[in-house]
């Protein structure tokens, strides 16, 4: 972040290995919608395998940032390199390597859960996907409702299916926009196993629940209101009071 400050070097989980390449590098990233800036001058480096929490009030550009990283939006200016691919020119190199869980579950309401997952598996060229689909359904506790149409499921069940869709192709980078939305406590617990920190997998998690998400993250990016430059960056022990205060000051 252009006006942020590095509190501490990243620690733990082997994620501070200097030989490890960076999964995400942003320099002066900006995105405007017409004359309204959504992101202004975000500088950020996320090492491969690290988890980044993104905090900020409504309208601070969290979802915009995630969609840029997913190649679903083009940056207006600045530099962005994701998994070694410069954006937007190299966005085709990221296809199939990113698992994106947005506000919309990206599921067709008139297809069953299993049909939706099979469709995504085919798009990603997963050979003989049935076993992997079954594993994913069981991991989020949805095997019993796999034959129900997505439109007939509750919002929480659709979110569980969306989590399956997001990890089905075993992405290198997970982009999660409020992944706990609509989930009950059991769903949150199951989801944390599927999309939680994992060796070699980089995660960016947008959240309004820092108490829950920060302990599982290595870095935090706090975005200010109205597309203002990010106001703080904390690395290291995110369960610390300092990190919580930094986050709470913006989120509250």
């Amino acid at each position, binding site marked *: 972040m252009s006006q942020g400050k590095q509190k501490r070097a990243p620690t733990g989980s082997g994620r501070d290995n200097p030989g490890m390449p960076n999964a995400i590098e942003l320099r002066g990233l900006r995105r405007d919608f017409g004359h309204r800036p959504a992101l202004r001058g975000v500088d950020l480096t996320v090492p491969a395998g690290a988890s980044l929490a993104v905090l900020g009030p409504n309208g601070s550009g969290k979802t915009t940032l995630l969609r840029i990283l997913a190649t*679903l939006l083009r940056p207006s200016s600045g530099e962005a390199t994701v*998994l070694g691919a410069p954006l937007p020119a190299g966005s085709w190199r990221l*296809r199939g*390597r990113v698992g994106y869980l*947005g506000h919309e579950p990206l*599921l067709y309401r008139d297809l069953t859960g299993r049909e939706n997952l099979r*469709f995504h598996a*085919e*798009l*990603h060229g997963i050979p003989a996907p049935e076993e992997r689909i079954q594993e994913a359904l069981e991991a989020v506790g949805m095997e019993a409702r796999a034959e129900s149409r997505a439109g007939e499921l509750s919002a929480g069940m659709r979110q569980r299916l969306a989590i399956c869709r997001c990890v089905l192709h075993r992405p290198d980078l997970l982009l999660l926009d409020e992944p706990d939305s609509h989930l009950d406590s059991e769903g949150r617990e199951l989801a944390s196993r599927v999309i939680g920190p994992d060796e070699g997998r980089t995660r960016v998690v947008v959240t309004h629940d820092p108490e829950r998400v920060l302990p599982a993250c290595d870095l935090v990016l706090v975005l200010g209101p109205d597309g203002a430059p990010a106001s703080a960056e904390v690395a290291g022990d995110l369960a610390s009071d300092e990190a919580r205060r930094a986050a709470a000051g913006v989120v509250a």
Partner: protein
Amino acid sequence: MNGAARAATPWRTAFGAILTKDLRMELRTLRSLPAMALFAVTTYVIFRYALDRTTLSGSLAAGVLWATLLFAAVLGINRLFVAERDEGGFDAIRLAPIDRTVLLAAKAAALIAYLLILELVAVPIFALFFLEDAAGLAPLVPVLLLADLGLAVTGALISSMAVNSRARDLLVPLLLLPLVVPLMIAATAASEPLLEAGGPAYDRFGLWLGVLGLYDLVFLLVGYAVFDFLLED
């Protein structure tokens, strides 16, 4: 982590996945086909009583046939990308390692399937209402197939452009109809001698089939060239 891009999904696999998904959803919900067929049949009934004629031939028969099929097709074209917009299909496809023109090809193929089913219902009813004999229907098949291809490619292209607009229902006919004027001229000109009262004739039939084929080729190339850009934000 920063390894090479993943291998692209084979074109045929992605095409099959999208087409199968579309046909399955249409069979399950029947959102487009019944409306298209009902529109066509109702329009033929209206023509029959409005023209106060029990038989039509030549250019009038060809005009009634194609005008009705075209406007019935617009109903399906309007809805072609609605699920992709409303349910996130565009994002899912943009995230997958596929050639994006697969989406255009699969949507055009789905529309061809809808048009063929529409014609299986509407053309026999047209013949029943307006033709003295059905001898012209068999040679009409290549005309229908070539016109369906052109209409499907152009329709899929226009539908993908209009789907994000709130004025989608207005935009599709406004953009589509001028573009398909050459297609309709060629289709009616090729159909006209086939629907003459004395039985089918083949005056310049090959020439008009060639024009239909050329139209199809041009819009296939245009679609291939521009569709990737239409999917950008």
